[in-house]
């Protein structure tokens, strides 16, 4: 299990590959589910030039570790990895990575989705978008259904 807050650009699939290589569970996991959230260059009808991502050092990591432990317990996962970018982010860059490993696929699918929903609804991160005219804080995240 690993949680990390990252201040510079990262290549999400290289991170997953690297982490998986370090795992002791080779041959034990039949399933890996990975979600990557990236910055889009538009939001609510406006072109977004860049973004600033603020977090709560200490609480954010603690919260992500808590939900990782919960998911591992609930779905009997073999391992999990959560990476989240902070600071200045540009379009097409990766913001968040959630990866889980399990014996069977249902657990991997369900746990990765649950982790993303928990992260989006409760993890202390805040986005500020830079538009062509000024800046704005993103008011709220989309609900599970969108």
């Amino acid at each position, binding site marked *: 299990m690993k949680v990390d807050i990252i201040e510079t650009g990262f290549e999400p699939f290289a991170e997953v590959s690297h982490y998986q290589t370090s795992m002791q569970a080779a041959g034990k996991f039949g399933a890996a589910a990975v979600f990557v959230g990236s910055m889009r260059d538009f939001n609510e009808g406006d072109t977004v030039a860049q973004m600033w991502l603020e977090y709560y050092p200490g609480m954010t990591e603690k919260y992500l570790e808590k939900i990782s432990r919960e998911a591992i317990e609930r779905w009997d996962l073999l391992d999990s990895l959560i990476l989240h970018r902070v600071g200045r982010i540009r379009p097409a860059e990766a913001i968040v990575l959630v990866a889980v490993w399990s014996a069977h696929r249902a657990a991997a699918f369900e746990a990765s989705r649950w982790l993303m929903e928990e992260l989006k609804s409760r993890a202390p991160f805040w986005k500020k978008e830079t538009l062509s005219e000024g800046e704005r*804080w993103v008011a709220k995240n989309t609900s599970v259904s969108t």
Partner: protein
Amino acid sequence: MGIAIKFFASLREQLGREDCELEAGSVQTVAEAWVWATDDAVMPGNTLMALNMEYVDADAVVSDGDEVAFFPPVTGG
């Protein structure tokens, strides 16, 4: 040691407040910490509160050495 107060994101900007420290014993709850730290500003209805980096309600009891945080709805991921 006192009680550390933190504000994040749009709430920090709206209040124009930096993080601050209240004297030990000056407040009993998270709600009272807000009143003292903001000069009784109106708290936005969607404000989230944390005590020592765990989510709590406004009536959570604070003690000397605690850290209290106020922030708007989260928008990570």
